[in-house]
């Protein structure tokens, strides 16, 4: 097993539903099993959306979600992991 799997970052700040999930889905589809994708979003709905996505789609796991606030802007940081393709 590889010691460290690569992590990509996707910035979808400013975009509204369904674009954060749509773009994250495309990025993740091109990734390999075990790789991580960090998604930065300003859309509050992206928090439950990522959870819903992972529930419906076996290709993704939401590992971590956090809120970062700087200069009165809140950014939601989602750490997703690509699981086995079917």
């Amino acid at each position, binding site marked *: 097993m590889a010691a460290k799997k690569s992590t990509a970052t996707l910035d979808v700040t400013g975009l509204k539903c369904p674009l954060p999930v749509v773009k994250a889905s495309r990025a993740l589809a091109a990734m390999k099993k075990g790789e991580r994708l960090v998604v930065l979003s300003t859309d509050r709905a992206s928090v439950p*959306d990522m959870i*819903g996505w992972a529930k419906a789609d076996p290709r993704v796991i939401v590992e971590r979600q956090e809120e970062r606030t700087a200069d009165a802007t809140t950014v939601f940081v989602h750490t997703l992991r690509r699981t086995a393709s*079917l």
Partner: protein
Amino acid sequence: MAAPRRKALVAHRRATRAKVPTLPPALAAAVRAHVREEVARALAADRRSRVTRGANRATIIVFSGDLDRVMSALILANGAAAVGMEVSLFFTFWGLGALRRGTIVAGDGALSRAFTALTPSGLSRLGVSRLNFGGVGAKLLRTMMKQKGVASPEELLALARESGVRLVACTTSMDVMGLSPKDLVPDIEIGGVATYLGDAADSRITLFI
């Protein structure tokens, strides 16, 4: 004052505590590892079964030709495609206006020509279901959506195509609306009620918008 009693109580508990046999550390570790492995295997099987259990499709009938409703359908379609579902959109009646290619007068015969001239000639010409005011409302909504970072209906339709969303126009309602395939944007499938039923029977989600 209460100290002797507490002492007695502690002694009593100690004496009556159930004797749990302890496993040798190596064996305990092996058991823990085994349980962890089994749980992981069961979880993985469950995740797989969610998609293999049945087709994972969403089917939406777009009946309305209101911009806001068509937007809802397109947003849902893109979202469903993004979460790995197969998606079909069936356009009927007023919804066909979203697929017209922009020619104001379409169809053959006076009635069709008059009817098509009076109905929106494409996605860009759709009005909103409330406060449209002859198209001003739709313009306002588009401006507001753009400001807020919401994708435009045109972008959503293009995205849907890219994601492989099936776009089907219903023939019967095309006839009723005076439209033929040449009046629609390219690459639209032509289908009927059984096309819808075939996909809907395979779907876990089906909506009429």
